[in-house]
């Protein structure tokens, strides 16, 4: 009888647990690969043992418990799952562009697990992405770090819950076009962008003081203290000031990068990463001294005026000046070959294999605050792994399998062509899109300027 009660209780508990997002974790043994650990050099003819989603052991001749799936990888390369520090894949909405500060919105509310972009990213070896708010606002919303566990219908299972909070800022042409030139509200110039950000932080300080005073008073006996109004926007800004969020700031020009570095110094903010930052090379010493790094394109330039004076040697210059540098995609097409983008730093600046691979693994992990969990192949880290045919930095590299938490989510030989999770009940002829790229940084924004011209996205 007692046993029965235990069993029933256990089942009930299991049922309750099943309501929470269940993250699948797997066991795995990869054999005889050339392992690119990133932090511990290259290890040839080496095995990797994964248990319950974590890397348990790296070495030669490992034997796994029975029932562990074995992957024979001799002649192949294994590297950590690629991390994209700037992406908009798997988001139903990208921009809440109606206000220049929208720190209160959260991308985790709009995660879309049906986006085929997730699978396509997996086919390019990307296992983690920073799903960001767009660049329409000076201070945008909170981003969400995603693990590409494609196949689930539950958006919560895609969220990397152990990742620290990050938030999107944007400087330059995009916010000034959307708000100033598009709607006639601040900011319209780079002067205004700084003012908006400083205003936001100063208002947040006042808000914090009010609430601290209230909480102190309310803690006393028989308190009749009246609570102030709740403002999620100012509260989030206050959290930034308290160091609880990492800022990822979309920026291009050297002067605006400097501006934000100075603003952060004034407010004591240390957790700041600059993204795109095409002119970052012009302020590399400052970035090295005062920030958590820069996340850049390999070679995109000249699509807007603020990137006219950029160089594809950006990543190399930043790396050689001691800036934690990563390469990102900000695009559903580019995310599929970040390993190739990283390879471009060898042509433009002569980075070594080790330096180049760090740009898409341990460095973006550092920028997202998850470097203790992913970004390299070390025992104890999460088993996000990619098996390549040919070295990943070669243009002839072809990802073979991609694993997240030790579960295989991409297999070039076994996967069906049609990877859609959901199909419309009435769409008889599939639409054909002529989109070579899918830049979504300015998705969903009215793109009128005063003269009514339509500007290209991005």
């Amino acid at each position, binding site marked *: 009888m007692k046993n029965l009660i235990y069993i029933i209780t256990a089942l009930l508990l299991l049922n309750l647990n099943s309501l929470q997002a269940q993250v699948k974790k797997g066991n795995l043994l990869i054999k005889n690969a050339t392992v690119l650990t990133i932090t511990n050099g290259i290890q040839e003819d080496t095995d990797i043992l994964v248990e319950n989603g974590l890397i348990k052991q790296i070495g030669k001749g490992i034997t796994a418990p029975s029932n562990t799936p074995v992957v024979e990888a001799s002649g192949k390369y294994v590297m950590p799952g690629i991390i994209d520090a700037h992406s908009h894949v798997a988001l139903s909405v990208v921009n809440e562009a109606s206000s220049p500060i929208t720190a209160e919105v959260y991308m985790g509310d709009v995660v879309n697990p049906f986006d*085929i972009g997730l*699978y*396509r990213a997996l*086919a390019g070896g990307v296992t983690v992405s920073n799903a960001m708010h767009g660049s329409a606002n000076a201070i945008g919303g909170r981003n969400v770090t995603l693990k590409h566990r494609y196949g689930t219908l539950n958006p919560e299972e895609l969220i990397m819950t152990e990742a620290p909070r990050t938030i999107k800022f944007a400087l330059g*042409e995009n916010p000034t076009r959307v708000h100033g030139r598009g709607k006639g509200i601040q900011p319209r110039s780079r002067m205004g962008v700084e003012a908006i950000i400083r205003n936001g932080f100063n208002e947040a300080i006042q808000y914090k003081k009010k609430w601290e005073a209230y909480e102190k008073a309310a803690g006393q006996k028989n308190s009749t203290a009246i609570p102030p109004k709740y403002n999620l926007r100012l509260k989030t800004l206050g959290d930034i000031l308290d160091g609880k969020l990492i800022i990822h700031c979309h920026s291009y020009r050297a002067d605006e990068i400097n501006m934000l570095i100075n603003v952060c110094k004034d407010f004591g903010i240390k957790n700041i990463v600059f993204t795109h930052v095409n002119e970052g*090379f*012009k302020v*590399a*010493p400052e970035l*090295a*001294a005062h920030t958590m790094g820069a996340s850049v394109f390999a*070679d*995109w*330039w*000249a*699509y*807007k*005026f603020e990137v*006219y*004076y*950029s*160089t594809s*040697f950006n990543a*190399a*210059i930043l790396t*050689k000046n001691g800036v934690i540098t990563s390469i990102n995609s900000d695009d*559903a*097409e580019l995310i599929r*070959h970040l390993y*190739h983008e990283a*390879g*471009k730093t*060898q*042509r*433009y*600046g002569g980075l070594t294999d080790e330096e180049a691979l760090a740009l898409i693994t341990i460095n973006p992990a550092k920028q997202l605050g998850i470097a203790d969990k992913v970004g390299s192949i070390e025992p104890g880290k999460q088993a996000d792994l990619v098996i390549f045919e*040919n070295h990943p*930095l*070669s*243009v*002839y*590299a*072809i990802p073979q399998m991609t694993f997240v938490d030790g579960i295989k989510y991409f297999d070039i030989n076994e996967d069906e*062509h*049609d*990877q*859609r999770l959901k199909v419309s009940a009435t769409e*008889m002829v*599939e*639409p*054909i*899109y*002529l*989109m*070579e*790229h899918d830049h979504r940084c300015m998705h969903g924004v009215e793109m009128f300027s005063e003269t009514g*011209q339509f*500007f*290209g996205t*991005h």
Partner: protein
Amino acid sequence: MKNIKIYLFLFLILPIMSYGQIEGEVIKPRGGKFLLQNATVVTVTNGTIKNTTVLINKGKIEALGENLADAEATVIDCSGLFIYPGMIDAGNRLGLVEVNSVAETQDFSEVGEVSPNMQALTAVNPNSVAIPVTRVSGVTTSLAMPSGGIFPGTAALINLNGYTPDQMYAGFKGVVMNFPSSARRGSYDRRSDEDIKKEAEKAIKNINEIWQKAITYHRLDSAKAALEYYPEMAQMAKVISGELPLLIEVNAASDIQAAIKWLEDKKVRAILTGVSEGWRVADEIAVADLPVITGPVLALPNRQSDRYDAAYTNPGKMLKAGVKVAIRTDDAENVRNLPFNAGFASAYGMGKEEALRAVTIVPAEILGVDGHLGSIEQGKSATLFISDGDPFETKTQIMHVFIDGYQIPMTNRHVRLYQEFLERSPGLEK
């Protein structure tokens, strides 16, 4: 010690520095005689030959063989290095736009649906910042394409050296046609399938009317009739007469089939461009014997249900079916990524040799300029580059580029910014 470091870097990137030019001085393209000694020459048409020297004179490849010598020539020691023909990107907007979001700099699209008389060549900006950025990658030749409307204009092939468009002109012009598309322009395009079909049918009818007019114009003009000034028809007549080929931009599978059918009864030299769903109808394209310029290879699949590598495998699949395939980037400021597009096509089915041909001799043949471009052969234009390895690999450095016999300065804005900012002076502290 620091200064020597800077000069060493400069020596690596600018071998011409050995001529004792002062840092900061402008380096210009140089003509003359050049002896490229002891290289592995990838001729493309005649195999790969080792320990070979190439003699460049009067803009041409005057000779190639072992143990060539010429006292007047500037010698470049190419031991351990490779010589390739300059790569040809057969479809892009290089030189026709400077900053894509600034409308004033866009010169590839004119008002009006029927404007075949618009000459892309005249709008090319020879001093576009992107041109030096492009040519140091080994892409030496590019097809400037107008866009927008049904007949957006006449495309022109340019070499990436010269101070006027005429100096750059590389010997090919073609009238561009945008075949009516059944594809959606973007995710916001919510027309029903029947409506898209109806609009496409209407557009074909429109094109046929214009075609008939052009035929009439050509007939009357050939009969020396006195016709009213009609520049659009005059240009179309050149297509009817066969003087100029037709570059048909078409992508969706059903559209490609419709285009092939449309061409059946017409005696024109036609080249299909875009062709992103060509793999679905590759056999039909092969039977119709139409050459294809496709790309970019680094692109998203057209359909959500497509295999993720549909665009990567497209050129290889068409080639396998017997189609003549050239690769383009369809880009503006990053035409330099042509070799990487070819690299991906190679990895995903095309093979290295064919991928190299797809960016050299094949586009040259399709555009009818293989008499002077597309391979390393005696008598052809000295449009080539010297690299330390496979140009498709990102690790490879392109050491020298020659266009029409001119040695191109291996510098551009990106390189100069690198030189200035690698070690900034003052650094962090002033």
